């Protein structure tokens, strides 16, 4: 698994490639969480899974874990580029009900949420 992280202000963009499974999930979790802990101002996590060839329940659990972390800080998670198989698992697991699913990185980055 390859993971590229970019922070722009209150947004963290994570581009993931390869397999997201029990072998790669720990590194995925640790690298994203390190950024989240370093920058408490991050309130939107955009995860691009376009180049993820394989994902299973261990991979989904690592996405759910980041959702829970973002929820603690009243932030949001956007998933981008879900392939059909990943989308199906996302629905089977109920994860799709919790996160936002966006068509493209730009739409996930641009979406403006109303200020409280």
């Amino acid at each position: 698994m390859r993971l590229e992280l970019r922070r722009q202000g209150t947004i963290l963009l994570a581009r993931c490639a390869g397999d997201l499974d029990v072998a790669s999930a720990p590194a995925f979790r640790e690298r994203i969480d390190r950024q989240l802990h370093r920058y408490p101002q991050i309130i939107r996590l955009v995860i691009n899974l376009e180049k993820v060839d394989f994902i299973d329940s261990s991979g989904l659990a690592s996405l759910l874990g980041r959702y829970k972390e973002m929820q603690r800080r009243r932030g949001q998670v956007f998933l981008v580029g879900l392939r059909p198989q990943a989308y199906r698992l996302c629905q089977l697991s109920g994860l799709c009900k919790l996160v936002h699913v966006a068509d493209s990185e730009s739409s996930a980055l641009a979406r403006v949420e109303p200020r409280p």
Partner: protein
Amino acid sequence: MFGEENHLTSAIKNQLVLEFPSMAENVGVARVAVAAFAAQLDFSLDEIEDIKIAVSEAVTNAVVHGYRDRPGLVRVAAMLTSDELVVEVADRGKGIADVKKAQEPTFSTDPERLGLGLSFINSLMDKMELRSTPGQGTLVRMSKKPQQTASAAGKV
């Protein structure tokens, strides 16, 4: 839990056996090998993906739950008949105390996990059977037939 293939008949056309140490890195090796083996039947690409996920879940369970951090061997046996793939994933790990409860969605003994592995196998494969003896190990047996027959796919 090993040596379970005795019940198989002469209808077996081909067979693959993998045995490897219980390491997360080997989960990907097992699912890719079984997927390549399964491609000898007329599975669609989606069905091959389903098989990959199911194998990944079963082997992950053996590594994460069967052995936890203890060393041990995982054995994967895949068999092909003329129209069916059968995969057995076996470990000699700690076993499952309550096999029924383990199959309930979102039952997990680890808070960092989803607890959906077995229910994914159930939805992605045609059949799944789980046998376990606490202290002895666990065997998951799953099977799948291609939905589209060779003739329906327009092949000779």
